[in-house]
């Protein structure tokens, strides 16, 4: 596990459920560090332990926790900078989905140790997209699913994102864009200062 995932889980749990829950999760997962660092690397087993403990404490399935993490990373006020970076992907939601194949490389440009699975969006016509997503790192497909849903809201699009049957070495997400301009969405100016 790298610090990106660990730090994201920590921010999500602390911000959404409070420091006490995070402390309990840490204690349960027998993790010796008080706080994860974005820039550091940690042993791979740590994420699974933290995630397992978090799921237990929140009484949710680990996949659901990861999907909520994806939602949080894009939609929470504290995560504005990340959401801004994602908005550089395209002028509307469809363009964003189309550009998702660039995400792993974009992430690596910023944090060389960031690990995202390969992503390949395929336009199936009529606003339907199949997004193929590698299996490693495990669970990332759920984070991405939550993230796509949050980005649809951000763009003001109405879309569904369902986990389809796996295809070969990939997970499959089925994105259906029902309306490109369902709501106002959130403002995005290219220049950060203007916002």
């Amino acid at each position: 596990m790298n610090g990106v995932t660990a730090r994201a889980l920590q921010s999500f749990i602390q911000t959404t459920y409070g420091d006490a829950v995070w402390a309990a999760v840490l204690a349960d997962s027998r993790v010796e560090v008080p706080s994860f660092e974005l820039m550091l690397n940690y042993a791979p087993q740590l994420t699974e332990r933290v995630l397992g403990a978090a799921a237990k404490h929140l009484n949710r399935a680990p996949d659901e926790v990861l999907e909520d993490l994806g939602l949080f990373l894009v939609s929470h006020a504290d995560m504005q900078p990340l959401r801004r970076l994602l908005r550089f992907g395209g002028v509307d939601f469809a363009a964003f989905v189309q550009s998702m194949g660039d995400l792993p490389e974009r992430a690596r440009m910023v944090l060389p140790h960031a690990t995202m699975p390969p992503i390949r969006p395929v336009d199936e016509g009529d606003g339907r997209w199949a997004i193929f997503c590698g299996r490693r790192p495990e669970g990332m497909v759920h984070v991405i699913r939550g993230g796509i849903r949050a980005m649809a809201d951000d763009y003001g699009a109405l879309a569904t994102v369902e986990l389809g049957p796996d295809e070969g070495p990939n997970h499959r997400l089925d994105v259906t864009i029902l309306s490109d301009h369902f709501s106002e969405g959130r403002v995005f100016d290219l220049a950060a200062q203007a916002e």
Partner: protein
Amino acid sequence: MMFAGDITLDPGVLGQLLPMHLRTELSGRVLSMGATFARIAGSRATPDMWLFDLLACELPDGEVEVAPLVGAPVVRLRFRDGRRVGFRGHAVALPDGTALFDLAFDLVDLADLGGARLTASDFPPTDRTLDMLYLMEAKSLAMREALRLVDRLQDARDRAEAAALTDTLTGLQNRRGLDHVLQRTSLGTPFSICQVDLDHFKRVNDSYGHAAGDAVLRAVARRLMRNVRTSDTVARVGGDEFLIILPELTDIAVLDEIALRIVAELERPVVHGGQQCRISASLGIAVSTDYGYPDVKLMIADADAALYRSKSGGRARHTIHARPEQAPAPPGPPGTSRRSARP
């Protein structure tokens, strides 16, 4: 518009291809501009205006000719009015006798797109301005996070250092380490305390620099350790102050011998960078059996007072603090022990 060969480009197509272009007559009159450049120019651009009324060029003063710009490797232009947004680009001559400028933001104006409310659709896919913006923003985020990490690590290091019991320079116990040892020292068993203060250390620092000073301090630490028993504790309690705890050693003759040996050892020059650094030491000793109930604080104060007598007596010597009931002994020659009354 005719290009070499037989390609005809509609101005609308040209605008699509180069949304940051300007087309002018060689006289300088502006004929058309791309939609993105027009959005950046805003009210600064008016129909039929002159290029050099809109933009200033880094040319010799008074130069208002388009011709010298055509074919130049780089053309740098800047708005004359409002915010002086800068551009760099190049100009080519078209077969119809006009000049075509293609422009891009100067780096300094790129971060906020010159204050213009542009969107992704203002840039063609070949233009990597958006990627630049993404990277600039992402880089500053990553840098901020990295600097925060450095801050936190620095904090942690400071805290660890404050909590440490060892002096990092000499490897001896520091004052905190000494406090720990003193807490563990059983007041039931007799012991002695020896304060050591270096003589002329400041001179070494001043003459040969801090590196030499550090080398001397390390040598002092080694020599002190060599001249006491392993059960004794040597601590560095100040810049050039040391304190030795000698458990179960109260024999004045032995203490004298140890003190003389220490002074002699510390007077051996330390060679650093080809320089012979010479110091000496003044010592003050207090012995627990001189006290009805050994109060460590009082003993240290008394050892200090004895040390002060060594200093005022001419340095390079030691003094053993006298029992309160004893009269001070007559002073001996330098380097020998003498007894001092509590001040």
